[in-house]
């Protein structure tokens, strides 16, 4: 556990070309975020040795696992890479304990020791009492915990988590997330986590890589990427509004010339690519053009209302005569405010944001 993981991968798939490089320090967790079809699972497939890249190199803990330049290709079963997928995929013909003991048994451990190891790991994931059950007798959350114990019992040098919470219901996902935090992040396991949920990335990951259309558009410490997103996707998963443009005095200039007033996070060269970011909670909504101090005011057409806990998120679309950048902007308001506005889909509204709520960052290419 010294050198961690480094990988560069080029692989042509039917709908995209994956061309990305990533690195994970030993004991750290990298979250790969991205929309469907961005190549997230393809990355995991290459790391696990289940997919052969056209060009690329994968190095783990000083061992070269894949190197197309030298023709190196360590088979999956010798990589010491554990995999936990969206589905638990417990072997249906084995008990929970035998499933967990599978890895140690493959490593040549005798039956009794492997069984002891399995029960220890099951206890570790709070599934000790499930040891003698068959997978068919487990709930989704229980099965996923057993599957995690199975992946860990193989003592992998690298753990791959492929949307491990996506198939769980709302009741068991938080418990599983807390468990992953304890046995993966706090235990210092080198891990690559694929997710499309910002909470997973924030809770579980040290670093984030945003993958879109097979290319890495953004990477960095999880908090930075999600607090100051530079790509539309990262902003969406972080629940933030993002407007693209170029840096200008006092804010950002959109393609149609509108100035979005805001505060620059760092000195920006005027005319350089930039993004303006602000949370939906900072957007005030009016039935008519508001007077007063808000610097940023835009007319929108209400495209959708989405209930989100205590608030309602109003999703904007650009009216035909208005600039395109308001498309997709979100505003969070209370249900009472929605009632006062009498807002329904298609209604004309005005979104307003104070300049102090808008932060301007250097933009992605």
């Amino acid at each position, binding site marked *: 556990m010294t050198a961690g993981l480094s990988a560069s991968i080029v692989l042509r798939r039917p709908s995209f070309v994956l061309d990305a490089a990533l690195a994970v320090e030993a004991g750290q967790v990298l979250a790969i975020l991205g929309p469907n079809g961005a190549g997230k699972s393809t990355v995991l497939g290459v790391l696990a040795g289940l997919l052969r890249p056209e060009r690329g190199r994968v190095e783990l803990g000083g061992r070269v696992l894949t190197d197309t330049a030298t023709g190196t290709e360590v088979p999956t079963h010798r990589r010491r890479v554990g995999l936990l997928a969206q589905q638990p995929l417990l*072997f249906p013909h084995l008990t929970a304990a035998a499933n967990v003991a*599978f890895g140690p048994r*493959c490593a040549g451990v005798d039956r009794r020791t492997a069984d002891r190891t399995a029960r220890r790991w099951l206890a570790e994931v709070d599934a000790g009492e499930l040891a003698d059950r068959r997978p068919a007798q487990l709930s989704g959350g229980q099965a996923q915990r057993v599957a995690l114990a199975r992946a860990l019992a193989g003592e992998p040098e690298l753990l791959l988590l492929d949307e491990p919470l996506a198939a769980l219901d709302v009741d068991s996902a938080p418990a599983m997330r807390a468990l992953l935090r304890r046995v993966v992040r706090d235990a210092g396991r080198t891990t690559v986590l694929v997710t499309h949920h910002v909470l997973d990335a924030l809770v579980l990951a040290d670093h984030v890589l945003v993958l879109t259309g097979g290319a890495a558009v953004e990477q960095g410490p999880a908090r930075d990427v999600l607090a100051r997103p530079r790509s539309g996707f990262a902003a969406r998963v972080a629940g933030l509004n993002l407007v693209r443009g170029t840096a200008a005095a006092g804010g950002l200039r959109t393609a149609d010339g509108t100035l979005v007033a805001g505060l620059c996070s760092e000195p920006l060269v005027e005319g350089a690519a930039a993004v303006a970011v602000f949370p939906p909670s900072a957007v005030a909504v009016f039935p008519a053009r508001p007077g007063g101090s808000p610097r940023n005011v835009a007319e929108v057409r209400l495209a959708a209302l989405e209930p989100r806990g205590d608030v309602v998120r109003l999703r904007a679309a650009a009216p035909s005569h208005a600039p395109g950048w308001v498309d997709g902007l979100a505003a969070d308001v209370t249900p009472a405010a929605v009632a006062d506005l009498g807002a329904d889909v298609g209604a004309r509204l005005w979104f307003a944001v104070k300049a102090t709520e808008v932060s301007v960052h250097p933009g992605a290419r």
Partner: protein
Amino acid sequence: MTAPPPAPPGAGRPARRAAARRRGRSLAPPRRGPDRHVVAVGLPPWLWLPAGAGFALIALPVLGLVARADLARLPELVTSDAALAALGLSLRTAAVSTLLCLLLGGPLAAVLARSTSPAVRLVRPVVLLPLVLPPVVGGLALLYTLGRTGFGGRVLELWFGVTVPFTTAAVVLAQTFVAMPFLVVALEGALRTAGQRYEAVAATLGASPGTVFRRVTLPLVLPGLGSGLVLAFARALGEFGATIAFAGSLQGTTRTLPLLVYQVREVDVDGAVALSLVLVVVAVVVIAVARPRAAEGLR
């Protein structure tokens, strides 16, 4: 697939309902069989008519056979020397060819289901050929390949001093030829249904391809394999055309039960019917023993 035994008309339903009442209306679905609370919205009533006719086409001839049988002479007819010899030969050869199907067809199915080689796409149609070929044509093909004049037969005779046609080995080969596709099709389907995701997980846990095959793939496809073996055994047992063309009909050596039935049907109708009934009974036993598992595998 455990249908209750037929009850006298009119008595069954009320009795069953009364039994259900006695059990106390359990809302839990029955553990096996279809859930009777589900409304079959995709089954128009008129489908019952052709479905019933189809069932009758299969069931009535079997009943006709039973009706024609001389039940008094049955024990005597089926225990004749010729009949016992043929039955023994049939069971032995069908068992050996089922084993051959397993040893050769099993790996063939695994390759067809898992290999990514483009050559495999050319192999599959050839493997399925015996399914669509008239068996007698298959028998002739075997004869002209492994017969004295065939290139395979000449090699066997010159190098090993072995002559295949018109021996018990020829019976086994003919049966394997026609039965193997049944096993390959059933097993390949099971392998494809099981998918490779379990195998991928096993590999990440450190299992070599051999261990994956033994500890994961094989247990997952066991029901499918069972159903394939049953189909292959049944097909081998009933083999006629390829056998008579390639192995002939010599009592004790190549005259299996179907061949014997054909042989005696003109001179001894009662004997032929009795032997046919024996084949029906063997077939029913095979289905009864293996059917539940086989059905699970096909699902």
